[in-house]
């Protein structure tokens, strides 16, 4: 029982990274923009966050720097795809490759650095409960912030006027434009917000999750976050559940090995990716699932004059 509680704890922690990045991408996609650059933004943000903590000693400053790095890259991406109408997929891929290379280059000086010791966290009273305490209530605050983010995003998208405008821009930019909404500026804001969240996730990886900087340390989490938005059919709550599930799969492979379960570790390493593919296939077989929630103009360029 104890070990299951700890497995849950580790899964929530691993899933939080995926969820934060994926929520950012969800905002992008709700506004009609697909940003394949998540991996690159997260890497640059991981480095920015790590370097900031090395110099200032403050994890919060590190998060802020990571968000800023993600937002700046996303803004560049946004200008390219929204105003210059470059292909979203190609530009996003370029951003991913650029981010991986640039962070490796700029980060060479930080490979050996160490971060100051971090306090451990526990909620008062709740954290002392047997089983539930270690499973749910002794996490880094970011784990709870992430849950809050999901609720906030649900409220924003479906309960506010701004959220409605954002969604309309993703569904039919022409109609939104005809109604007088500045479609391009709204899309850019969404892209920047998404980049900031990807950046936050990246900084969380390098400053809290694995307090180190190593080239390529995001190791595919950005891609899983991208797959997650589809997996969750663009619903924030499902994003969170999916993220925990994938986080759980990552941890489960090591957990099973530790328990001596005889599964080749290479197969376990493939599991999160395999699960992504299976889920994609399953939901693609059900057109209504996709059609109801998928932003109709996702990935399509918008020409205001046309």
């Amino acid at each position, binding site marked *: 029982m104890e070990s299951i509680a700890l497995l849950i704890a580790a899964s929530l922690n691993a899933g939080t990274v995926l969820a934060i990045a994926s929520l950012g991408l969800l905002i992008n996609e709700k506004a009609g923009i697909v940003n394949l650059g998540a991996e690159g933004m997260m890497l640059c943000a991981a480095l920015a966050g790590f370097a900031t903590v090395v110099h200032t000693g403050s994890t919060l400053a590190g998060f802020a720097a990571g968000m800023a790095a993600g937002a700046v890259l996303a803004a560049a991406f946004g200008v390219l795809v929204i105003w210059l109408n470059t292909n979203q997929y190609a530009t996003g891929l370029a951003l991913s490759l650029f981010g991986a290379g640039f962070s490796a280059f700029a980060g060479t000086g930080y490979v050996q650095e160490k971060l100051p010791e971090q306090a451990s966290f526990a909620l008062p009273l709740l954290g002392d409960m047997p089983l539930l305490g270690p499973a749910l209530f002794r996490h880094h605050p970011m784990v709870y912030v992430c849950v809050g983010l999901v609720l906030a995003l649900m409220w924003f998208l479906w309960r506010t006027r701004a959220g409605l405008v954002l969604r309309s821009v993703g569904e039919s930019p022409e109609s939104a434009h005809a109604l007088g909404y500045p479609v391009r500026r709204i899309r850019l804001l969404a892209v920047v917000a998404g980049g900031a969240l990807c950046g936050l996730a990246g900084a969380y990886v390098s400053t809290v999750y694995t307090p180190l900087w190593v*080239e390529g*340390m995001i190791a595919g989490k950005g891609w899983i976050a991208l797959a997650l938005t589809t997996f969750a059919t663009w619903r924030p709550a499902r994003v969170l559940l999916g993220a925990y599930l994938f986080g759980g799969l990552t941890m489960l492979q090591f957990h099973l090995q530790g328990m001596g379960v005889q599964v080749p570790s290479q197969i376990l390493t493939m599991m999160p990716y395999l699960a992504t593919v299976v889920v994609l296939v399953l939901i693609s077989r059900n057109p209504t699932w996709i059609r109801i929630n998928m932003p109709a103009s996702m990935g399509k360029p918008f020409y205001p004059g046309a």
Partner: protein
Amino acid sequence: MTDLNKRSLIKLAALTAVASAALIGCGKKEEPAPAPEAAPVAEAPKAEPLKVAFAYVGPVGDGGWTFAHDNARKAVEAEFGDRVVTTFVENVPESADAERVLRDLAGQGNKLVFGTTFGYMEPMLKVAADFKDVKFEHATGYKQAENLRTYDSRTYEGAYLAGVIAGAMTQSNTLGVVASVPIPEVIRNINSFTLGAQSMNPKIKTKVVWVNAWFDPPKETEAATSLLNGGADILMQNTDSSAVLQTAEKMGKRGFGWDSDMTAYGPKAHLGSAVINWAPYYKKAVAEALDGSWQGNTGSWWGHKEGAIDLVSIAEDVPAEVKARIDEIKAGLKDGSFAIWKGPIADQDGKEVLADGQVADDAFLGGIKFYVKGVEGKLPN
């Protein structure tokens, strides 16, 4: 057009002047300083410095494996001064790139080239065949040639010493190892760690998690977390980063440094560091290359006896009698009176692999593909 040509000509001339000035400057620097007390023996005029190159698999800042190699490179520079010039290339992947880099290093006039990971074996063999006048040294491999020899260190001695401490310090009688790739070297280290622990406490069990990578800190962190969650209270790793020790520190458990002294990465968790010191071997290889006694087609496997392996920075809370036991083992390794792999040793299923009193030879050690008794889980094949 003429104008352009003139301008570029002037530029070229200026560049040449600067470059030659720089070259002359460099040349001066490289000239051996006149020996303060000229050697009375008529030696051959001092030749150009020996160019020595190193190809590393990771960054020199990994704080572990590559860091240890680079420290030895610096020791070589310090020892031989202006008689050698060393260069290194880091982050050379164990792929087709390795051959390109090695070929490049040989082509640049390096006369002694070290490749520091197992995966360079085939590329080194190929490049060595094309550069007969260059001497190649390959770490942890087993293929040799006229101008290619191998060297390795007995990392399992460090693992055993770490095991002795872990066996004395564990409360849960469960140890964890974050392992990289299932090759005999790593399996031997897991086994030796377990044997060391069992020498202090026969009830010890070892859990193993394979991450299938030498250097992947997030994965190493996750593997370490799952081992600690699964009941292990002391961790050892055969991966290249400090992530496992850092995880132990974060979760209030204990761990070891591997390859290099990692005290700084987990001051509270750190029980000791099993370090490799490549300097004695590198100094020997360079000295041999300098005096012409270098021989290919050989292999060296150095341990504590030759100063290549040690357990350092043992934590203060390790009891004195355990520290004494460590010193005893070290002395035994030094004079050859102590053998780590001495029977009776049984494998995981209880089958005897070394009879009572039998000491394993290097061929046996090089081919270990089983877990000893007390290691849990199944060995991936």
